[in-house]
C-alpha cells in the first residue's frame, strides 16, 4: 500500500512533538522549575534558541515540557470519549428506535449544548482549577462526538445482510456489536480520534489560557501565552513560539487524519477505485 504524503508529513511533525514531550521527562536543555532572573526576557539566541521568559526560564525547554501537558490532556480526553462514547453509540445503534437509543441520543444532544468551555467553567466553579478539569471537560465533550460517529457507522452496518446472517447464527446484539460492528467502524473511529486529538490540543491551550486548565508550576502552552500577554509589545517571542508549537502540532495531527482517512475510509477508497 502506498502511504499518502499527508500521513507521512503529518506523522513526522507529530512524532517530533511526541518525541520532545517524552524526552522532556528525562532531559531538557535548561531546567524549567528554577528561576534565573538575571537571564530574563532574552530574545532568541544561540544559547537560548527560543529566548527566555520573564523569570529567565528557557522557552525551548518549557515548550518541550508543555508538549507533555498538551498531548497528555488530549490523549486522555480522547480516551474518555472513546471508552464511554463508543459503547453508548453501539448500544444505541443495536437498539435503534428503542427507548435506550432515545435516551442516549437525547443525552448526547444535551451535552452538545454545553461547549467544553462551559463544562470547564462548571467544574472549576465546584472543584477549583486544575489540569484534571481540562481533561474532564474536554473528555465529556468528546463522549457525544464518538457516540454519534459510532452510532452512525453502526446503523449503516446493521442494515447489511451479514448482520442478519450472524443473527441467524444465533448471535446476540452484544456479540454482533463487538464481533462485526466494532472492527468495521474502527476506521471511522481512528480518523475521528485524530480530529478530536487535535481539537483537544487547542481546547487545552484555550482553557489553560483563561486559567481553567493547567495551573502553575505545570508548564502549558496556553498558560505561556496568557503570561506573555502583558509583555507582548516588547517581547513578542514569548507569544510566538508557544503559538507555533500549537499550530504545528494541530497541523500535524490534521494532516495525519486526512492521510488516514484516505487509506481507511472505504467511501473514499471506492470513489477512487
Amino acid at each position, binding site marked *: 500500500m502506498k502511504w499518502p504524503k499527508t500521513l507521512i508529513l503529518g506523522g513526522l511533525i507529530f512524532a517530533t512533538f511526541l518525541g520532545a514531550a517524552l524526552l522532556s521527562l528525562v532531559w531538557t536543555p535548561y531546567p524549567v522549575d528554577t528561576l534565573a532572573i538575571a537571564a530574563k526576557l532574552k530574545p532568541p539566541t544561540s544559547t537560548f534558541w527560543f529566548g527566555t521568559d520573564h523569570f529567565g526560564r528557557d522557552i525551548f525547554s518549557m515548550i518541550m515540557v508543555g508538549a507533555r501537558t498538551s498531548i497528555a490532556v488530549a490523549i486522555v480526553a480522547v480516551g474518555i470519549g472513546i471508552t464511554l462514547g463508543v459503547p453508548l453509540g453501539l448500544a444505541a445503534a443495536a437498539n435503534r428506535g428503542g427507548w435506550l437509543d432515545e435516551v442516549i441520543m437525547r443525552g448526547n444532544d444535551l451535552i452538545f449544548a454545553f461547549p467544553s468551555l462551559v463544562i470547564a467553567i462548571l467544574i472549576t466553579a465546584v472543584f477549583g482549577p486544575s489540569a484534571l478539569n481540562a481533561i474532564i471537560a474536554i473528555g465529556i465533550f468528546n463522549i457525544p462526538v464518538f457516540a454519534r460517529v459510532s452510532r452512525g457507522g453502526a446503523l449503516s452496518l446493521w442494515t*447489511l445482510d451479514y448482520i*442478519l446472517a450472524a443473527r*441467524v447464527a444465533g448471535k446476540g446484539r452484544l456479540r454482533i456489536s463487538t464481533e462485526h460492528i466494532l472492527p*468495521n467502524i474502527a476506521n471511522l473511529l481512528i480518523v475521528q480520534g485524530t480530529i478530536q486529538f487535535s481539537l483537544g490540543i487547542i481546547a487545552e491551550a484555550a482553557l489553560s489560557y483563561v486559567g481553567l486548565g493547567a495551573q502553575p508550576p505545570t508548564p502549558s502552552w496556553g498558560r505561556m501565552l496568557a503570561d506573555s500577554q502583558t509583555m507582548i509589545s516588547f517581547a513578542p517571542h514569548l507569544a510566538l513560539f508557544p503559538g507555533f508549537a500549537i499550530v504545528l502540532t494541530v497541523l500535524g495531527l490534521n494532516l495525519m487524519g486526512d492521510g488516514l482517512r484516505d487509506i481507511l475510509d472505504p467511501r473514499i477508497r471506492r470513489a477512487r477505485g
Partner: protein
Amino acid sequence: MSLISVSHLSMAIHSLAILKDLTFAIEPGKVFGVVGESGSGKSMTALALMGLLPGGARTSGSAMLGDTDLLSAPEDRMCRIRGNQIGMIFQEPMTALNPVQTIGRQVAETLVIHGAANRAEAMTLAREKLDRVGLPADRFPLDKYPHELSGGQRQRVCIALAIALRPKLLIADEPTTALDVTTQAQILDLLKSLVAEDGMALMLITHDLAVVSDIADQVAVMKSGEIVEQGNTDEVFRAMRHPYTRALFAASAHIPDRQARARDEPILEVQNAVRRYALPRRRLLGPAPTFTAVNDVSFTLHMGENLGLVGESGCGKSTLTRAILGLEPLQSGQIRLFGEPVAPGMANALRSGVQVVFQDPYGSFNPRWKVAQLVAEPFYLMQARPADWRDRVAEALVSVGMTAPDMDKYIHEFSGGQRQRIAIARALILRPDLIVLDEAVSALDVSIRAQILDLLADLSHRLNLSYLFISHDLSVVRAITDRVLVMQAGEIVESGRTEEVFTNPAHPYTRALIDATPKLPDRRV
C-alpha cells in the same frame, strides 16, 4: 436516413479500453435495444452519445446526429442538444430527481433552459407533460416533491422532463430495473406509446432479453465493450448466429434439471401469522398507528419441497422471512419448525435446522473475516465448534463448486457469483433441512444466475434439502419450485402447484403479475 449513425466508436478511460469499435444506427421513430450483462459497456455507449462520459475518457470514431458529431461537438453545442434533441432517463428513479425542488419546476426547467418558454408558460406545459406520462393534476399537482412519489411515479416524472421538448431520441438506461414487475410493464407501455404516438426514437438499454424482445425493433447484443451481433430483433433472436447471443438466451430461459421429491412430512408450518409494526405517532398523545406487514398467513412446507413465495416490494415477504428465521416476533398466530414453535428466543438446536442465503453478494459478508471464519459462523449455534471444523468448511466449499484453499482468502477476492456460492456454503455448513433463499439470485447476471440455479437444484437433490424460495422474479420461481405462494399486501392471495398457478392463475393479482412479466420469444432454432 438514420437519426443517429455511429461508426467505429471506441472509448478508453485512461488506458483501459471500455468500448471497442462500435458501429450502429438508430432509425427515427424506432426502438433500438441494447442488451448485455453488467460491464458490457452498454451504459457507457449511451453516455458517450450524450457527451456525459466520466473524466479521463477519450473517444474516437464518430456519432452523427444530422451533421453534428456528438463525440467531438463543443460543450455548449452539446448543452443545446441534450434535453432538446436527445433526452435521457436513468436506472434509479429514487435518486434521479432533485429532492428539494418540486416536480413541476424540474419538468419546466427543461423548457426554460432551452428558451422554449418563459417560467409561467413552462409550468403550463409541464402540467401537460405530466398528464401525458400518466400523472394527472388532481393527484399529482406541480408542487409535489419527489419524496412524496413512489419509484414508478418518479420514473414517470423523469420521462416527462426528458420528453418535454419532444426530443427526436430518448435514451433509457435500464429504466425499469429498479421497479416492480407490474410497474415495469406500465412504464414500458408508456415508452411504447411515446414512440408510437409522438414519433420519437428510443434507445433502450437493458440486461433483460425479454424486455428487449418485447419492445425493440432493432437490437444490439454487447459483451465486454463490443457489439457481438445486431440487426432486426426478430431476426437476431430467431437466428442467433453468435454463440454469446445463444448463451445469453439459454441462460435467461434456463430451467434446472430437477424433479419434485416432496414427502408428506411437514418441516415448516405457518399458522395464521400476523406481524404488525408501530408507525411514528401522528399526534403527541393517542395511540401510534400500526401497519400490518403480514396478515393472517398460513402455509406448510414439506420435507424435500421447493416452495416459492412471490410478491412485489413491500408485500411483506421480507418480514415473513424474518419471522420464519426467528428474528422477529409475531403478534398472533404461530410458526412451527419440526413441530417446535419458532420465536426470537428459540433454542439454538432448533435454529440450526434452518439457514438462509441473502440477495446482496456484497453485503452478506464481514469484509474483515476470512472465508473459513465466515462459512464457520453458524457453528456458533452448536455447543462447541467441532474439532474438524476446517474440514467441514472445506467440504462445504467443495460442494458449492469452490476449492478448499479458498477458505484462507478474504471475501473481496471473489466475484458476485462466487460470493453467492460461499453464502450457500455457509448455509450448508450445519447440514440443515431447510434453506431460505431470500432473492438469492436476483442480483446476479443471467449467466451466473443459471449456474447458481443449477447448483441449488443439484444440492437439493443430493442433500435432500427443502427450499423456501423468495423472489420477485416469476420466471426464476417457475424454474425452481414445486409449489408457489403469491403474496400481496401482507396476505397470501393464491397458492398451488407452480405449473398450475402459472398456466391457470385464479386470482386477478396473480394474473396481473404473470401478464406484466416480459416473455422471451419462443425458441425456434
